[in-house]
């Protein structure tokens, strides 16, 4: 500030650091100071590992499918209930999970509670196997499900509190790739673990039980991360005075209906896009074998491309979105590219490696550009509810559409299935374009590039500072000055000129 003019404060604003507590020792080092980037990234590891256990255990049944079927003497249909008991309750549960997070527990306690549920569920699951009680295993999966999805909501909320306005998109990308890492590690580890245990115990349900306890170990690790996160978050809140800006408002369940239109559009995109990707992968194997003449091994490889690519690409793409901003633009681009991929698969005989690789990239792009937008729209005290709600709707969509897609293939074949998915993507595209239009009409806050956003924040900061000044040196109105002058010289003022009541007159209160 070179030349003080009338608008600039005469007294410099107190720098915000003055009333912060002094950090000493290790706490002052970059690794422990919540104001520093390094500390944030250490916390990021905790956030990522928070969900590692639940993703690892979620796919335990898939990794041990043949063993579970053999040891528990169940057929494929019954085996699949292990997944049904997880998914269907979550159509409702993670909405309430998110709400409880906002309203009752708060994020720290909520995270720990959900981690406990995950751990308990996996323990029950393992005990069920050990006692050769399949119903107990199903119950375990149910308890596990109560925790699992809500924990993902908590993870999102943590990510937003720590990284809003910074590396949020990348963090969402990293979370996505960690979920893939979790399930991949599980797929590769569980079967050898089972083999290894069986050399000591011999095959049978007892071995299965022991193997599942390994999964419980990863849940314990996640719980530990949850506890650490709670501690660091509380500490950071104290140091950064995060609570100072809070209004103390509490969310009510009915607030959901007051979420802005843009939020609903994002939910539509979320459902319409995800149902065009995951149910397709679920049915893809036969499609690749038959249409493209691939043998079962390469068909499987093509089918899992989206998962593999998203694990690698999403942090990178998240970083790009962070650097450029323009989230809505990226979302629309991702939908368009996926649309093109599905068209390629539906209408051409081009090598499916091309389409599926591109789809992997566009899926990652969408995942890391879409979810953070919610943080721009919804106030922080409602974020858990918002994310929970989105996830609920998404779960519902995926569950219903998977069934519908299966029967479409059975009755009308893959071409119509692809057309069905294209229609969903078109719906997502429409929602994306509407989101852009509505946002553009309101000034384009969501689709700002990063530098615009920074500039706006700076401007807001300045405006806020200026307002602070105004509050401190409240300028007298001409009216007040004149009356003050009159009263100084002892002139009799009419009643309504009384300086204390005049403000009412102007607002028409006493008139």
């Amino acid at each position, binding site marked *: 500030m070179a030349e003080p003019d009338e608008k600039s404060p005469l007294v410099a604003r107190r720098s915000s650091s003055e009333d912060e507590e002094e950090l000493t020792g290790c706490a002052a080092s970059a690794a422990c100071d919540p104001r520093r980037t390094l500390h944030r990234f250490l916390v990021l590891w905790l956030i990522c590992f928070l969900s590692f256990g639940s993703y690892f255990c979620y796919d335990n049944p898939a990794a041990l499918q043949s063993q579970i079927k053999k040891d528990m003497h169940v057929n494929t249909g019954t085996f699949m209930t292990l997944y049904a008991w997880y998914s269907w309750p979550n159509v409702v549960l993670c909405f309430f999970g998110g709400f409880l997070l906002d309203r009752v527990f708060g994020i720290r306690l909520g995270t720990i509670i959900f981690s406990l549920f995950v751990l308990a569920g996996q323990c029950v699951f393992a005990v069920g196997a050990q006692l050769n009680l399949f119903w107990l295993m199903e119950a375990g999966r149910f308890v596990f499900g109560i925790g699992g999805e809500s924990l993902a909501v908590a993870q999102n909320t943590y990510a937003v509190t720590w990284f809003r306005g910074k590396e949020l998109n990348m963090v969402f990308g990293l979370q996505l790739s960690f979920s893939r890492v979790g399930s991949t590690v599980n797929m590769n580890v569980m079967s050898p673990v089972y083999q290894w245990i069986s050399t000591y115990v011999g095959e049978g349900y007892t071995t299965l039980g022991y193997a599942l306890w390994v999964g419980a170990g990863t849940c314990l690790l996640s719980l530990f991360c949850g506890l650490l996160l709670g501690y660091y978050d509380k500490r950071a809140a104290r140091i950064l005075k995060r609570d100072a800006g809070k209004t103390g408002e509490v969310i009510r369940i009915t607030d959901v209906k007051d979420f802005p239109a843009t939020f609903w559009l994002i939910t539509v995109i979320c459902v319409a896009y995800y149902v065009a990707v995951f149910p397709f992968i679920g049915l893809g194997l036969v499609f690749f074998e*038959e249409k493209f003449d691939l043998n*079962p091994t390469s068909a499987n490889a093509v089918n899992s491309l989206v998962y593999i690519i998203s694990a690698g690409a999403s942090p990178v793409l998240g970083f790009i979105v962070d650097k450029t901003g323009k989230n809505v633009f990226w979302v629309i681009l991702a939908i368009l590219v996926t649309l093109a991929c599905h068209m390629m698969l539906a209408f*051409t005989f081009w090598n499916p490696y091309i389409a599926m690789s591109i789809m992997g990239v566009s899926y990652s792009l969408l995942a890391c550009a879409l979810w953070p937008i919610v943080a721009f729209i919804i106030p922080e005290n409602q974020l858990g509810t918002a994310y929970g709600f989105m996830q609920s709707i998404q779960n519902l969509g995926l569950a219903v559409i998977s069934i519908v897609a299966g029967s479409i293939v059975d009755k009308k*074949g*893959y071409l119509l299935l692809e057309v069905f998915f*294209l229609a969903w993507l078109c719906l997502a595209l*429409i929602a994306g374009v509407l989101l852009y239009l509505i946002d*553009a009409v309101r000034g384009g806050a969501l689709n700002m590039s990063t530098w615009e956003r920074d500039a706006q924040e700076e401007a807001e900061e300045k405006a806020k500072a200026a307002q602070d000044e105004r509050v401190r040196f409240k300028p007298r109105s*001409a009216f007040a000055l004149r009356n003050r002058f009159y009263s100084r010289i002892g002139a009799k003022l009419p009643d309504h000129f009384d300086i204390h009541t005049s403000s009412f007159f102007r607002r028409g209160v006493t008139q």
Partner: protein
Amino acid sequence: MAASRQARRVYTCWSRFSFAFFVLTSLVVGNDSFSRQVSMHYNPGCNITECQSSSNDNNSHSNLVHVLARGNRDSIHYVWSTIGAPTVLMVHTTSKESKLTVDWEKLLRTTKGGISGAITVEPSNAVDFSMAVIFNKIWEYEDLHDKSELPEDNTGMFEAYDLAQMRWDDFNVTMNATSLTGNFTGTTTQSDMESLFQNGSISFKIHAFSTDDRSADLPHLQYTSNQTQFDFTIDSVEPRGNMSRYAMELTFITEDKKGMHVDLKKLQSIDDEYTPGVFQLFELTTMHSDQTESYVQWKPVCYTKHTRTMGVATPTKTYNLKDLDTKGIPADTIARAYFTNMDSLQRKALNISFGLTGDGSYVATNFTSWTASVGYGAPPSEKLSLLIIVVISTGLGIPVAIIMFGGLFMCCRRKDSEKGEKEKDEYTRVNGSETDVIN
């Protein structure tokens, strides 16, 4: 090679699209297909004892079924028979009134080799095309490494089932002359292998049509009154290996006119609407210069359970078409009763194996069923259905429209706001400062 294949595939895809539009226009213009009068007769004109009962040496019935499809100007004769190896003979005549004559004495009472001329179609000058498909052998092989590939050498091959040495049930019992269907069901009489058929059988279910449509069962092949469809089924035959798979040998003979050639075609389609999960169509056609005289058409899919669904479908593999010498034609078939000189014929053979890696082989369900059709003229071609076209055009048309209008709206808005800003600039304030109001 690969590039040209790719190009052909793309071409096929686009030609389907153009075909779709053709379909649309033809729907408006009207359909010019016609139907034939189709009838089915069992052992026509036979009054010797061999026809009445299973009086021959191994209790086998002498089944011969005549399917006659009479049109306005021509007629097609199909003769299905299990006298000898199961065979279908197709004769097309340019006469509406042509007649099939079977010399039963000659066919059933003479020893092998003497049956030539036992089946004739009169008037002979009206016969313009004839061919036969002989179902010769069933191979069984042990697919230890689950490669689902018929072995090149004979490793893992079991002794083949010779379909000429089967005991066939009475077709007449299963025949329905109204719905034009019937079953040839048989068990082997080969020594050491009879026990494998204790509860099992091999069967051909034939189905002729007097209208044009698509069959109600998977794989929903198209049918016309020019053709007969058949389901070939191996049901509950005891497999000889732990990973047994079956394959069938088809022999194909047709008269050898100048400019005639037999081709095996694999057609690719993007549309699997009628047979979910199957994108190919195989056609074994006889072409005379540019005209298709006859066809055998099938989809590379078979079913491992009686009730056909996509879940029990498994692919079939079609091997290369090979030339046969005259010795390759089975000695015992009605084709030899119709065609008098085997040397003047085109003779081809091909194998079709059932199942694919990972489906658990025949052993999983002890059931395999496969469908094909044999017909005269050009095979019915696959078209995109109206449903698909409508869904695609609305599904993709609406969003394009919305995006275009949205873009237009944005452009207008931007122009408006630019104009608005200009106007704002031009507007000069009458009163620069706030006015104080004293009430």
